[in-house]
């Protein structure tokens, strides 16, 4: 497999550690790593040879024009890609050094460790707010030794929603606003204590106010977990991420053009195509 590229940004982990790993904080594992990931839909080659290392405790933004394969890529990271009947892939995705596509892997356990927040808020409408947050525990039949109420409060607090809903945990989730629903979905992902959180354009369906609150939440969460966020919004990438990866499909399959620390990517990108995109000349 053509994965071992010498230009792989191996130093990212070190940077992240320096920034985030304060003494006494929980071990974050060794992060998530994609090696030479390709993706197909039927005969359509959607993504070609993406290798990217998400160091533990970092926020990585995936940017690029529509159809560049960034959403496809993020869905290969927790094996949601395979729900499309014609889908196929190649390459490896390593979580703590183990290939999540290895034969005999329990995919449900992988998804417990790599949570996902979707474009459109999707709380379970038949459940109350509280039940939604704890839905993951119930679905995965995890017997948490922790007090349910404490866990509920913690998850909602981390998602920045506790103050708004603490008096109506028994109400149905459908009554919340779009932004609140999305934060509820984040809280729901947090309850199963994932190491990595994937966010697929989490703010694209929300108003600017809600967007800011979610970004705030992301900054808070990044202290304790690895976050990968797909976004169309370059300002958002600049605000929340440590690293940015630029994807582009130039007529052929989507590729990753360039990855680097976010401020460098936006101030002095190495590739001309990145420069054109971040300066708004196309896309």
């Amino acid at each position, binding site marked *: 497999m053509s994965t071992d590229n010498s230009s792989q940004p191996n130093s990212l982990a070190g940077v992240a550690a320096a920034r985030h790993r304060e003494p006494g904080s929980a071990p974050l594992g060794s992060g998530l790593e994609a090696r030479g990931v390709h993706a197909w839909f039927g005969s359509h080659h959607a993504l070609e*040879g993406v290798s990217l290392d998400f160091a533990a405790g970092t926020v990585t933004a995936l940017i690029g024009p529509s159809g560049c394969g960034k959403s496809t890529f993020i869905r290969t990271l927790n094996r949601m890609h395979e729900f499309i009947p014609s889908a196929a892939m190649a390459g490896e995705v390593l979580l703590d050094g183990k290939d999540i596509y290895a034969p005999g892997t329990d995919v449900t356990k992988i998804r417990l460790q790599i949570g996902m927040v979707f474009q459109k808020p999707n709380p379970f409408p038949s459940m109350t707010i509280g039940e939604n947050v704890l839905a993951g525990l119930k679905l*995965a039949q995890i017997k948490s030794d922790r007090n349910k109420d404490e866990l509920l409060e913690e998850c909602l607090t981390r998602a920045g929603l506790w103050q708004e809903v603490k008096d109506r945990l028994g109400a149905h989730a459908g009554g919340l606003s779009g932004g609140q629903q999305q934060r509820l979905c984040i809280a729901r992902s947090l309850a199963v204590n994932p190491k990595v959180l994937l966010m697929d354009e989490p703010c694209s369906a929300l108003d600017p106010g809600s967007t800011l609150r979610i970004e705030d939440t992301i900054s808070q969460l990044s202290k304790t977990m690895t976050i990968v966020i797909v976004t169309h919004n370059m300002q958002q990438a600049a605000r929340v991420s440590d690293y940015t990866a630029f994807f582009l499909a130039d007529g052929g399959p989507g590729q990753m053009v360039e990855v680097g620390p976010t401020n460098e990517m936006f101030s002095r990108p190495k590739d001309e195509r990145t420069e054109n995109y971040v300066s708004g000349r196309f896309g």
Partner: protein
Amino acid sequence: MTTTTIPHHETVYPKRPWKATKADLIPVFAALAVAALLDYAVVAITPMKGKLAYALLFFVFGAGFQMALKWKKLGRRAAVDSLAGSVAISGAVIAFVPVLSLLETTIVKGAKGLSLGFFIHDMSVANYQSPLSEGGVVQAIVGTLYLILIATAISLPLSLLTALYLTEIKGKASGFIQFLVQAMSGIPSVVAGIFIYSALLLTTSLRGSTIMAALALAILMIPTVTRTAQEVLLLVPADLREAGLALGATQWKTVATIVVPAARNGLITAVILGVARIAGETAPLLFTLGVSNKINWNPFSGGQSALPYYVWSGLGDGTELGIDRAWSGILVLLIVVLSLFATARIFGTRKVKIK
């Protein structure tokens, strides 16, 4: 920190690592084979006997072994998931076993009595206890065709106009009419029969005839045709209608020359489905058809025969030969219904063209 584009010199092939591999499937099939053997052994040495025991034990062993495999490999949750899958599969198997049995018995038992004579003779010189080489279903086939034609002639205009009302005028009463059409589709066939009897036969000098039975069948046919016609008319794009109106055509002309022709194949499907719905109906005929053991070409007077009625009489006769006749009759009826069904499918897929 440079670009990480992968060089193109190596070909990468698409893979589906989530699909079960041969190595995954071998234990699954091995476990099923062991379950089958064990099933056979247990039935042989214990007092549990019969197909029911085989089926039940195979489920217990089969599902049990799959659960155990999953449990060992992935844990309790996967085992529960496996059990749920086994239960769903078993449910589907239980649902489809009767279909196989129905078709198998009909073909095996029905084919015995089929001969050319069965199709060209009537029952005027034979009765239900006669050998199947004597007497046949020709009068029943003619009767059924008559019933289909007349019931269609009665129900098609009503159904089509109602469907057009629902799709073209969309008047205030649309919701209500829709509700009534649906309510009509729930009328038991026996009620349609006794209604015609009570309205037209009970206190008059009229007797059961083709037209009376066709009226009862038309009642059952209308809702099916209306609902299917409505669905296909809705598929006609709105811009076709607007194009007609923009050319200065009246709504009537637009509907008659553009909308209905555009939906033609779909409307044919609607009629065929309606015919399939009534071709095998028996209950209404018992009150409205009268009796005839030979071809009656007059639909307005005198009794008539029909395939379902022929089967009914054979079953009612109760003798071995009578039941044999019933099976042969039902095979002919089933062939008629299934060909209608297949034709509707073919037209049904063609209706996509109008999109």
